[in-house]
């Protein structure tokens, strides 16, 4: 090989260039590997949390990467959902990362001018000054707090604040209060905690419109129970019968869906009771030994009273019931036979919206069926909901100002007159604020509520807001109500804060969930509970002493100590440990797992919940806590309340009006839902029925696109809003699937896409309560008096439909 000078120089140059090139590439690759390693192996931490999208209270595992929230999954240890979740749970990420969240406190410039940012110290000073000023002038009672759908210690804090500050006006605006027993259950059984329905063990479930699988108290918990109804070698197949004007998800999954004219559920229940009694199918032993008012009876004064049996047999003939409800006689008979022969059976008469103007008597009528088939206090039937052994907090220290303030009547009129049976009457609030009766409201705090969008009285609330000089909102978002506030103190979203949950719809166990913050706050927001404590501290005196905790975590720490001290139950654990504990407990042994409360507290935070699956009494006596010690078809408690209210107020008319419109004598205290007279169709011939989709969270979910995107498979729709019209009705009106239509009520009209849907009655128009912008169902719903919840009747509005 001959080497020339030129060749040598070229070779050296090429080698040097190649070396430089290779070196450069290697350097880049090294950087890439480092990046990749950092990206692929961030510090991943699972943090137990609690879903707050509905009253279900499912356990979550929040997946965090280097402290940032990246995913949601179900907590497999949590007894409520056992790792399963519904679509709503995943929307939490979009709540947290909503780009339109408020970044910090906002205040109005001038008299309700534009919002401007403000520091926390200044914002809290403004509130404290206003509260102190009102208190100083003896106007503490003119401060109102309007709360929405939440529970647990946040409710406790607000209640204590109202008591210590001196206002009777802590008002909850919601159509479902899961932590309270239904009024019908209080009156017929004397219970003070909600009842639990043992769905998993029942052989026949009869649901009167309770959306078990999509919108009731906990769709995941109910779905797990209903999934097991199919039967096994050890357990025969069970049957689910769902009565609902709309063929909902529950209706579609049920063994039998029974369409019914809205608001006539109580009449149907009495028809079923008639069939049970006539055919001798009811539980005679239970009725004879444990009920009062079934047969005619004579009181100590010698006055004779008609019993439930005779009234039902004489007034609720099946033809009458069938005509009123639209349910065929044969179906009524078959339901009664199923209910009596498939035992244990459970009848659910609790739903979110009211059953109509006769809501109390409807619920009483439905609950009577549980007594007739002897389902009270038995496995697979209706059980008592256990109370959590939480430590009682120290009593509120009211000073003279607070006592004077609390002595004023509530501004919403709850507990008096027409609303004598309710604890909150938000529907009456705007009218009373506008009228200044019994006194004007000088400050309003909005927590977890958005009445300007989600309340049937939203227009009246909007007017009332103009009369209130100082409105403070704690919403993390600039929703309709917050945008009318004077000051916004944005709360964390629920994954950024300490929280607890005390779910109350469970059968067979009690459960307390605890969650640490799963992610650091993204913005300059603060936990509203901490803000309340801060305000109390700044106000000083009795208010500060009543809320003397440093922060919300300390409140939870103080309350949960009772669970450790109770000597029962345990922090949730893996399945083998759980089984072992159950075996031991069944044999009467309970061994403490933790030596100190701090150890218990840490485990509670790391695993997510405490529960007690064996400590609940399952007996009939535990359920029957009335004056007679029996299930009362004739409610002596209701009679007592009416008599007390009459003595207090000197008139009876308002109560009688609230209980059905006319004095029906003894029938007021019996579960008798009157059969309405046949009404002419008039200008609004159709009935509006609103329902909740499984993807609709508390607050509407307008900022959770994943949920808006979830299709409603029964009508093949997503994103947009729609109205469901029966094909027969649509044909008569010349409406085709997908047409734009006007749905009009005496209150207003909205434009929606028509979806033809045969899963309803021809005279019913169904509208889903849907999140997102656009037309609002509350533009249609009249704020009709709701004497049993004080929220406003949702499904009694009549409408008409026409092509747009």
């Amino acid at each position: 090989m001959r080497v020339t000078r030129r060749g040598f120089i070229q070779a050296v140059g090429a080698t040097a260039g190649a070396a430089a090139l290779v070196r450069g590439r290697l350097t880049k690759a090294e950087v890439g590997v480092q990046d990749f390693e950092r990206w692929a192996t961030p510090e991943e931490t699972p943090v137990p949390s609690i879903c707050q999208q509905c009253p279900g209270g499912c356990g979550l595992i929040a997946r965090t990467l280097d402290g940032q929230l990246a995913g949601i999954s179900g907590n497999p240890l949590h007894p409520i959902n056992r790792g399963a979740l519904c679509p709503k749970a995943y929307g939490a990420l979009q709540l947290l990362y909503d780009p339109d969240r408020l970044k910090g406190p906002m205040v109005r410039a001038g008299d309700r001018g534009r919002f401007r940012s403000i520091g926390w110290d200044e914002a809290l000073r403004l509130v404290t000054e206003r509260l102190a000023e009102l208190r100083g002038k003896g106007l503490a009672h003119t401060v109102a707090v309007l709360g929405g759908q939440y529970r647990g210690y946040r409710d406790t804090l607000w209640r204590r604040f109202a008591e210590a500050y001196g206002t009777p006006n802590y008002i909850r605006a919601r159509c479902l209060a899961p932590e309270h027993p239904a009024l019908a259950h209080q009156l017929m059984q004397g219970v003070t905690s909600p009842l639990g329905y043992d769905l998993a063990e029942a052989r026949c479930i009869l649901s009167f419109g309770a959306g078990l699988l999509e919108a009731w108290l906990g769709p995941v918990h109910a779905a797990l129970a209903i999934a097991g109804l199919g039967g096994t070698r050890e357990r025969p197949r069970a049957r689910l019968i769902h009565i609902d004007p709309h063929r909902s998800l529950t209706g579609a999954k049920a063994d039998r869906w029974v369409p019914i004219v809205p608001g006539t559920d109580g009449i149907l229940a009495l028809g079923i009771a008639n069939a049970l009694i006539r055919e001798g199918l009811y539980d005679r032993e239970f009725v004879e030994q444990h009920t009062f008012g079934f047969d005619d009876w004579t009181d100590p004064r010698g006055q004779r009273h008609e019993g439930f049996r005779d009234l039902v047999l004489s007034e609720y003939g099946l033809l009458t019931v069938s005509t009123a409800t639209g349910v065929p006689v044969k179906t009524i008979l078959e339901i009664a036979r199923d209910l009596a022969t498939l035992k244990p059976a459970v009848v659910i008469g609790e739903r979110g919206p009211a059953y109509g103007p006769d809501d109390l008597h409807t619920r009483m009528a439905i609950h009577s069926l549980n007594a007739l088939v002897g389902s009270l206090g038995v496995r697979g039937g209706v059980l008592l909901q256990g109370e959590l052994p939480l430590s009682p907090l120290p009593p509120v220290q009211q000073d003279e100002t607070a006592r004077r303030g609390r002595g004023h009547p509530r501004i919403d009129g709850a507990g008096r007159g027409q609303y004598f049976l309710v604890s909150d009457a938000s529907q009456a609030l705007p009218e009373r604020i506008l009228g200044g009766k019994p006194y004007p409201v000088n400050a309003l705090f909005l927590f977890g509520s958005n009445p300007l969008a989600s309340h049937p009285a939203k227009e009246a609330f909007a007017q009332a807001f103009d009369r209130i000089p100082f409105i403070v909102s704690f919403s993390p978002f600039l929703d309709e109500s917050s945008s009318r506030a004077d000051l916004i103190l944005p709360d964390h979203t629920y994954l950024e804060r300490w929280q607890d949950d005390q779910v109350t719809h469970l059968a067979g166990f009690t459960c307390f969930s605890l969650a640490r913050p799963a992610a650091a706050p993204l913005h300059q927001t603060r936990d509203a509970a901490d803000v309340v404590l801060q305000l109390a501290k700044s106000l000083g005196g009795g208010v500060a002493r009543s809320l003397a905790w440093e922060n919300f975590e300390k409140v939870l720490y103080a309350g949960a100590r009772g669970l450790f001290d109770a000597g029962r139950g345990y922090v949730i654990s893996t399945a083998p440990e759980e089984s072992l504990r159950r075996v031991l407990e069944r044999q009467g042994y309970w061994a403490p797992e933790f030596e100190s409360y701090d150890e218990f507290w840490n485990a509670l935070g790391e695993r997510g919940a405490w529960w007690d699956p064996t400590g609940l009494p399952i007996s009939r006596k535990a359920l029957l806590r009335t004056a007679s010690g029996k299930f009362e078809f004739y409610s002596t408690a209701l009679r007592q309340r009416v008599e007390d209210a009459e003595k207090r107020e000197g008139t009876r008319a308002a109560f009688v009006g609230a209980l059905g419109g006319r004095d029906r004598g003894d029938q007021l205290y019996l579960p008798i839902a009157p059969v309405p007279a046949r009404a002419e169709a008039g200008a609004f011939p159709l009935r509006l029925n609103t329902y909740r989709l499984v993807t609709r969270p508390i607050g509407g979910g307008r900022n959770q696109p994943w949920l808006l995107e979830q299709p409603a498979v029964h009508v093949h729709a997503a994103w947009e809003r729609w109205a469901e019209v029966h094909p027969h009705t649509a044909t008569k009106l010349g409406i085709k699937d997908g047409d734009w239509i006007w749905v009009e009520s005496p209150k207003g009209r909205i434009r929606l896409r028509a979806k033809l849907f045969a899963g309803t009655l021809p005279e019913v128009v169904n509208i889903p309560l849907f999140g997102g912008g656009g037309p609002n169902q509350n533009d249609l719903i009249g704020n009709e008096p709701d004497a049993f919840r004080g929220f406003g009747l949702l499904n009694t509005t009549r409408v008409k439909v026409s092509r747009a």
Partner: protein
Amino acid sequence: MKWSAVIGALAIVALAWGVLGLRGAPEVTQPIAFPHKTHIELNLQCTSCHDRAEKEAVAGRPRTALCLSCHGGGEATGEIKKVQAFEKVGEIPWKRVWRLPPHVFFPHRTHVVVAGVKCQTCHGPMETLDRPPGRPLKTLTMDDCLACHEARARRVEKTAERGVVKTARALSTDCNACHR
């Protein structure tokens, strides 16, 4: 002679009418003048009252309790009053109108629930009656049964020939199917 022949002929006819059953079954009078038409017009189904037809071989007659589940309350008049009077007495003594020969086994459940045969196919247009029928509206013969069974069997065969998944059960025309 002539008269005796006429009398003789008449006697033979009378004998045949009475003894051989040519006059048919005697007319039945029910304790309640039940109007099927009125009840069907109220959207009741046949099996609302004759509920055993869906569960058992024998359709039976409705129990008094079932009548009273609709007619138990309020001031009643006429026939309804009579029904209410039976509440304390016991079952209404309905009289049987339809009766197949004792050697025929006719399971109602199989025909009503499994095969979906309309009640009127065998019982005639009961929904048009304002009063209970004194006699069966339709007399079933073995030809009627066989015609139905054979027609159904042919349909099933044709379906099978077309390769469609068989949905209907092949019907037996074997003697033992009914004469057992």
